[in-house]
């Protein structure tokens, strides 16, 4: 079957629409398949169609979501899982920062009501946490990117991050932090567990080849 004839401007408009939808797919998938999928989409288009149909749009977005949940070709499942954990680490840090900022007023009122003398140190702690959040989120995202790309410095950074995080948890426990900040410690423990799981996955023997092989794998 041949592609229905369309005016150049309508075809260009439709192609732009499809490209915008295909932009939701992971980069590795687009590089390998975008031109081919576009050819199929254009071949399936109705005569005179100017923009993607709702059905095709939903189908492409659903496909994009599924592809984000799959490892790229040649990527071990262990690394894929570790990268998703690092994304989760970044997301958790963002959620904590937003919660901290959103509840600052009520926390202040509660502390001022029960322990007014502790407000200064609590304020320093809360603002410190919120201020370091962009840095920690950036670090999680960079580690996810670097490990996904098979860069060895990515997993070294993760190991260092995990080591520092472990020391911070131990320091907090030694200062009896659990007596005044159980929620903070719980969040720290979850982050520590996420980092631990990610470290175990990237240093798993099944992940080794990913960090040794640099060329993209073509299937």
């Amino acid at each position: 079957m041949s592609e229905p004839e369309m005016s150049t401007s309508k075809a260009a408009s439709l192609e732009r629409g499809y490209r915008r939808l295909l932009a939701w797919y992971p980069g590795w998938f687009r590089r390998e398949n975008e031109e081919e999928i576009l050819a199929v989409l254009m071949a399936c288009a109705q005569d005179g169609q100017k923009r993607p149909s709702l059905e095709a749009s939903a189908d492409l977005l659903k496909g994009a979501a599924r592809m984000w949940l799959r490892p790229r070709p040649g990527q071990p499942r262990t690394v894929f899982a570790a990268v998703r954990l690092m994304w989760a680490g970044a997301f958790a840090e963002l959620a904590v920062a937003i919660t901290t900022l959103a509840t600052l007023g009520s926390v202040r009122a509660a502390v001022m009501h029960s322990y007014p003398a502790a407000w200064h140190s609590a304020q320093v702690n809360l603002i410190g946490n919120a201020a370091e959040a962009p840095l920690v989120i950036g670090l999680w995202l960079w580690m996810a990117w670097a490990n996904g790309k098979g860069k060895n410095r990515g997993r070294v950074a993760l190991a260092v991050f995990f080591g520092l995080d472990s020391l911070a948890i131990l320091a907090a426990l030694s200062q009896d932090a659990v007596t005044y900040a159980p929620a903070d410690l719980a969040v720290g423990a979850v982050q520590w567990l996420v980092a631990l799981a990610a470290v175990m996955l990237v240093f798993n023997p099944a992940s080794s080849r990913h960090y040794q092989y640099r060329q993209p794998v073509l299937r």
Partner: protein
Amino acid sequence: MQEATFLILTALAAGSQHGYGIISDVAEISGGRVKLLAGTLYTALDRLRADRLIGVDREEIVDNRLRRYYRLTPAGEKRLAAEAARLHSHATTALRRLNLAGGVA
């Protein structure tokens, strides 16, 4: 195996096909009941390639557009044959129990 996957493998059973060809063939095999959309097709093709059930046969440029042909691998042929036999066995049993095997077939 999902129906769409079965139909895609069936479309490739007689020879290599490109994406649009698979969509057309699946519609024909299913009597127009299954209309694959591109997103669904390429999600399935990616999975089938990862499972080594299909592979790329060749690529062409037609009207300045990439056309990639897919073919069944030996593992894909084996898997399709096994699935077809399973479905056939189930269908035969169902028809026999309905006492319709002679009339319908």
